[in-house]
């Protein structure tokens, strides 16, 4: 039995060939430099571009992003509260260019996984050895009537920039005594604690300037991130100002809007709030579905070790667009995933094994000027899937001291400065 017969020899040969195709397919023709094309210049895409160049400056990296500037969604709630200016969230791509990344401002319209080519609206075509897709989120149609026009009446402000300015302006313009309605989306969505930090920041503004006003949160869920800590913060800082209604009690949250009439409706009730922040359900950024990278959920299935698409070889999907649970859809997670994928891509284009990944997430929420809370976690790879490291992570303790809460505010601001430097160079 200890010999290789003809049949098993064929199997061996076939399997070895398959491995070399799947594992290390893209060894370029003699002398050719390895090409990596990155679609999307947000947290994931920009971090990946920089870290690939850090790891191997011989790899040519092209980052394709429609906008000249990126506004971070994280910390944009402080703009709504009034303690931060939108410009402090604005980042350009000069830093990446200095690291040798070719930045192209254009919109990707197609990705041909077989031909390994990315095509843009501007009519350009880029061939790649490995492609990284980091398109963030786009909105689903779960709220009737929430079209482009309605977005101007009831801003989502879930992609920072003009939408953030608009929502802030509406808060400034509203009369004292009005109601601000917030409609958080169903899971999964970008920045799970975001809507509830937003309630804090808006309440902070209203308490100082329009103290008779109220905030009504009509949730599409029955529970939410850091719920105990947020409920405590609402009670501690904004008592009587914030009412949260679960999906069970509202019939599943906001179902429709009428921009012309200024109304927002659930299954049971119609509201006419002074300001409404409608955050729709989310799916992966549009190019992900156009390129066939999404499954029925609207998000992109990926392999745990390399975040290579489970659907198309040679394409890695990172950040909010990927199905990456238990990693959350957060800025820190996108930054962490991008570094793991950058290392994997550099290894793969050089014909090496991608190595063992390690991820971290930390999310701060600033609930008052001297009070912040956080959630953190360390992740590793178990049986080919992302897993939480047992015993690690967790929330700010409910009974943490005012001194520690104040420290968390400065640590949150430090995190913002450091992660944005890390992303945009």
């Amino acid at each position: 039995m200890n010999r290789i017969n003809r049949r098993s020899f064929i199997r061996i040969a076939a399997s070895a060939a398959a491995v070399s195709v799947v594992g290390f397919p893209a060894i370029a023709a003699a002398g050719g430099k390895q090409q990596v094309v990155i679609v999307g210049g947000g947290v994931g895409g920009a971090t990946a571009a920089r870290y690939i160049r850090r790891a191997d400056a011989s790899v040519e990296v092209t980052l394709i992003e429609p906008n000249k500037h990126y506004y971070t969604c994280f910390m944009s709630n402080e703009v709504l509260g009034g303690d931060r200016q939108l410009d402090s969230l604005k980042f350009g791509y000069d830093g990446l260019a200095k690291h040798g990344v070719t930045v192209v401002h254009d919109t990707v319209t197609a990705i041909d996984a077989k031909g390994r080519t990315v095509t843009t609206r501007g009519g350009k075509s880029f061939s790649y050895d490995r492609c990284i897709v980091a398109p963030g989120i786009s909105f689903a149609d779960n709220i009737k009537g929430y079209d482009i026009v309605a977005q101007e009446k009831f801003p989502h402000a879930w992609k920072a920039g003009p939408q953030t300015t608009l929502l802030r302006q509406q808060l400034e313009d509203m009369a004292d005594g009005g109601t601000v309605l917030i409609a958080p989306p169903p899971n999964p969505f970008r920045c799970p604690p975001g809507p509830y930090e937003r309630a804090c920041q808006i309440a902070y503004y209203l308490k100082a300037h329009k103290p008779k006003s109220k905030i009504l949160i009509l949730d599409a869920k029955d529970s939410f991130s850091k719920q105990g800590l947020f409920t405590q913060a609402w009670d501690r800082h904004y008592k009587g100002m914030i009412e949260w209604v679960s999906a069970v009690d509202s019939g599943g949250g906001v179902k429709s809007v009428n921009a012309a009439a200024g109304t927002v409706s659930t299954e049971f009730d119609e509201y006419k709030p002074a300001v409404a922040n409608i955050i729709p359900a989310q799916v992966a950024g549009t190019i992900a579905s156009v390129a066939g990278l999404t499954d029925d959920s609207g998000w992109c299935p990926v392999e745990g070790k390399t975040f290579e698409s489970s659907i198309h070889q040679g394409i890695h999907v990172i950040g909010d667009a990927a199905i990456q649970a238990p990693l959350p859809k957060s800025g820190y997670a996108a930054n962490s995933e991008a570094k793991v994928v950058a290392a994997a891509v550099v290894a793969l284009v050089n014909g090496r094994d991608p190595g063992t990944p390690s991820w971290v997430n930390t999310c701060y929420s600033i609930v008052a000027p001297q009070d912040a809370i956080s959630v953190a976690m360390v992740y590793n790879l178990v049986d080919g899937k992302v897993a939480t490291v047992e015993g690690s992570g967790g929330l700010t303790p409910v009974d943490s001291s005012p001194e520690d809460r104040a420290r968390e505010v400065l640590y949150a601001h430090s995190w913002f400065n450091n992660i944005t430097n890390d992303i945009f160079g």
Partner: protein
Amino acid sequence: MSVNKNLPVLLGCGMLLGSAQLPASPTATMLADTCAGCHGTDGASAGPATPSIAGMSEEYLVESMEAFKSGERHSTVMGRIARGYGKEEFKLMGSVFAKQPVTVTSQQTDPARVAAGAQLYGDNCEKCHDKNGALADDDAGILASQWLPYLQYSMVDFKSGSREMAKKMKKKVDKLSADELEALLQFFASQQ
């Protein structure tokens, strides 16, 4: 099961993993890169409070992380993250940051306090925190140019007992007034 059936699998794995047959530990760079979100790229923090860890000795990083992990040293978020790693992983992270230059920051400090701090430094701190706090001795952190709020938090924790002081340090700190301690911290923070 016959040997023949196993062979293709074994051969496949060998080619896929190269020389590494068992799940390896993440590399030092892989681990250290996860710290950058809060502590800055290569451990050089842009502040205003999270400390730079660039230039810290490997031994000091390991000792600090072990203390955070056990809860012996007070923290907000660091202890929660430290519990995700073992000593060997701390060593790998430490090996990366030890190679980095000490971060130079530009912070607002009071010249009069800095001058007073310089006097106190020579008498009280220099023996262990050499080179104005810039020397990465095995058992001392980098104080030179460190973010002032972090230095202040550290002193609050030392004084409250939520972070243990070395006996020699405690003797000195107990003798100094709050003003003198603040002058010392500003002296360290002002180092260029």
